[in-house]
């Protein structure tokens, strides 16, 4: 760790956001492992530590990966890692990111949405020709809501930490003036990148 990283590590619990870094592990969710992607164990590193490496989270319960609870253990302080005993992941504190810093990967997700949920989208007044417009609404709201912490951790598996972002989609055409509260699903990727998995999911209240 350099001086800046050491400082950020010391103040991590006081800062609104943090980045997880394992300084001994260059692998992240983005890196190809020729054998098996991200398996349960990559060398000395566990699946959770690889999938969380270099990712940013808001420093609030249910918005960040759960840390190991040492309260009822006799594990020595020197062995107490962040996510498991002897874990080498560190938290580096950061200020709240600006939405412009968030990168969203939609790829071909809008084609999938208009194929599988065409009836729903049409019912909101959007036509097939409105794909780009709806994508822009989803992307902009997702960036803003993630940066403002309007999200929650949904689950974790070998594909990474899935989060739910809460969107309010405006109706169009004859549905102008109406708003639809929907969840959108993402996987947290390194360096403030979110990879969309579900553009429009279930209703939120």
């Amino acid at each position, binding site marked *: 760790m350099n001086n800046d990283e050491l400082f950020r590590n010391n103040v991590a619990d006081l800062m609104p956001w943090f980045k997880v870094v394992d300084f001994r592990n260059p692998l992240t969710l*983005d*890196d190809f492992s020729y054998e098996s992607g991200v*398996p349960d164990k990559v060398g000395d590193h566990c699946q959770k530590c690889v999938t969380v490496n270099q990712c940013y989270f808001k420093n609030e319960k249910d918005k960040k990966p759960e840390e190991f609870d040492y309260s009822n253990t006799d594990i020595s302080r020197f062995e107490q890692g962040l996510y498991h005993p002897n874990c080498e992941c560190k938290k580096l504190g950061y200020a709240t990111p600006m939405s412009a810093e968030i990168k969203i990967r939609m790829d*071909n997700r809008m084609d*999938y949405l208009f194929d599988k*949920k065409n009836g729903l989208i049409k019912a909101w007044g959007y036509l097939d020709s409105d794909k780009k417009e709806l994508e822009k609404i989803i992307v902009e709201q997702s960036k803003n809501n993630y940066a403002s912490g309007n999200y929650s951790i949904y689950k974790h598996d*070998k594909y990474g930490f899935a989060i739910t972002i809460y969107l309010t989609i405006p109706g169009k055409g004859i549905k102008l003036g109406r708003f639809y509260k929907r*969840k959108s699903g993402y996987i947290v990727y390194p360096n403030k990148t979110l990879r969309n998995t*579900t553009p429009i999911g279930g*209703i939120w209240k």
Partner: protein
Amino acid sequence: MKIYDDVRFIGNENNYDGYNLKHGEIGTITLPEIRDNCFYVTFIDPSFEEDDRSAPIKISDLELVKSGTISDDKILKELPKNDPRWWCKVENGYILNLLGEKKNKIPYDYNS
């Protein structure tokens, strides 16, 4: 099998504790890369009101229902860091990447 193909879950539900999968249900592969011999499959609630369910499912527990028409170029754009070495297709019992390399030696034995 590849991203955006429709697939049927034919595995044992008990091996996917916590994912609420149902034997025989049909979902769509929604991420291109194969990790640990699994595709990431999403099941849509038909009423569109409940959350979609997604799970990494072993390739051997999936059966192709309907193949999409996505090109290799588009798959490449969806892969992490656009790296063509990621395993991303299953054809004739082989796990393949976009370089045409095979992961398994014996067809349909994905661990070989």
